[in-house]
């Protein structure tokens, strides 16, 4: 296009593009494909390697109690760590969308900031805040005469609360921004027309905002599900690493992502780890595809 000395240019382009693409393929695409192959073999890469086919998948889905518990923990994270993000972010976006409210950029800044912090640091911070004897949350609850939160190492409910609080705090701002982007796409003219007709605020929300927001809600929630199923740092940190898996403690601290790392680091069952990863990946892929479909629909 801009260079017409075609032959020489082609060689130059290739000399730049090829090494990068090659490295990308080797360190990103190859591992992705190999992980599926690993899941089909026992002791892949060693001399006693043996083809097992879908045996590992069968074992995980029917017999493995760790896999079952991991799935449950992942679902719990989605329910308590992901869903509340939307219950707060969507009304907040609607509120901030009101033209009489000032300082929108300030609020955007405040609510989004946690998203860029390290999930590890945030988890440690929330652990301290929710600590039983010296935690500041229990101090505040005590002042207001509310029941205190028990030690989260022993209590599954507290564990879920601390983990969800940390996840929600970090991600609400992210969803807020998505909803705000969606709201700003609603043509202003529609509201103006409704004003001329003398429509009430409720009517405007019911007939203008709502029809626009429903696809955006589904888009945002599928994106959150995709990200929520990949959450690793918070449960891993609160659970205290993978060593505790044998000891017990709350099952909620080891969703499937943590289970994968446990299988790799503690039991070296890479076939099972890869199979778990692929099962989770397929589920994520389904939601990703739905998500992209939704995006395409309202980009038209």
């Amino acid at each position: 296009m801009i260079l017409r000395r075609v032959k020489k240019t082609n060689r130059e382009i290739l000399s730049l593009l090829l090494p990068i693409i090659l490295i990308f393929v080797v360190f990103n695409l190859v591992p992705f494909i190999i992980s599926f192959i690993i899941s089909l073999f026992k002791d892949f890469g060693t001399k006693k390697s043996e083809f097992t086919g879908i045996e590992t998948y069968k074992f995980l889905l029917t017999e493995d109690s760790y896999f079952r518990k991991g799935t449950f923990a992942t679902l719990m994270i989605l329910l308590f760590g992901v869903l509340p993000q939307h219950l707060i972010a969507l009304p907040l976006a609607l509120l901030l969308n009101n033209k009489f409210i000032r300082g929108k950029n300030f609020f955007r800044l405040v609510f989004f900031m946690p998203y860029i912090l390290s999930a590890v640091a945030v988890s440690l911070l929330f652990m301290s805040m929710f600590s039983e004897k010296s935690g500041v949350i229990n101090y505040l609850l005590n002042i207001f005469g509310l029941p205190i939160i028990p030690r989260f190492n022993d209590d599954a409910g507290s564990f879920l609360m601390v983990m969800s609080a940390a996840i929600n705090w970090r991600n609400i701002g992210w969803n807020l921004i998505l909803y705000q982007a969606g709201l700003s796409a609603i043509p202003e003219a529609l509201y103006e027309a409704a004003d001329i007709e003398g429509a009430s605020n409720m009517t405007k929300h019911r007939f203008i905002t709502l029809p626009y927001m429903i696809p955006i809600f589904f888009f945002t929630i599928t994106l959150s599900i995709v990200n929520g199923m990949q959450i690793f740092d918070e449960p891993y940190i609160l659970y205290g690493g993978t060593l505790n898996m044998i000891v017990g403690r709350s099952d909620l601290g080891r969703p499937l992502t943590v289970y994968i790392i446990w299988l790799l680091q503690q039991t070296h069952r890479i076939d099972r780890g890869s199979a778990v990863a692929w099962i989770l990946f397929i589920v994520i892929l389904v939601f990703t595809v739905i998500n992209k479909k939704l995006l395409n629909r309202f980009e038209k």
Partner: protein
Amino acid sequence: MHKKTKRTIFLIAAAVILIILTIIFLFPIYMMTIFASQKSPPDYLKSSPLIYSNDFLNNLNKLFYDFAFIRSIINSIAIAVLSTVAQVISCTIVGFILTKYKFKFRNALFNIIIATMMIPTFVKLIPLYQMMLFLKWINTYLPFIAVSIGNPMGIFLMKQFMERGLPDEMLDAGRIDGLSIYQILFYVVFPVLKPAVAVLATLGFITTWNDYMTALVMLPNKDAFTIPIVLQHMLLNLGSSGTHGELMMAILVTQLPIIVVFLFASKQIIGNILAGSIKS
């Protein structure tokens, strides 16, 4: 008149809600600094844990004599800088070629690159670990650099910037002056796209700085630990060698730079995180 009172009530309610939410949202950040000023948090039945205590400098001092922590800072900076540089250079080159040159399979290549964004890290991690074991790259910075070369999100963002901010005339001028593609990249593309490069570099740096899962798998050796790993170890060592105040000071020291960068570049950071993760 009636409508006006209704609006006033609404605005007051909205203000109250927003102020309460702001306080809740800033509270953990506030507590981060308070915790960092305490040796250990006091028993709340005896004294208030909300108030600044006077161990701030003490904690800071202790932290900077903590060899493991200092080493982790060096490791984290090295890994973040090296992989960010690798990412920025490679993504600029690929983005440039994909935007400004026409060749067979160009769109196919771009679509494949974008599709790989859907692959989560955990799917690749086990084989990647085996590969790094084979290459003897475990406990080095190399796995992070290798993985960040040709990062799809970076390519996508650079391509977007170039479609808007890199006019063909500028490249033609360079070509007429007899510059090779390498010279055009170095003398035209990078300088013109400085703001885009800065944004991509900031995002890449923050991502690597915060990365935990990959570091956990690739860096099992104490000498190679990055900040998040050391933070977790400080937690496990509470009561034996470390104090709570020191841990919280470590969190403050490692998160504050990110907060400061964010405050200065929030618009670009928010906009590009948004673009990179939904438009793919």
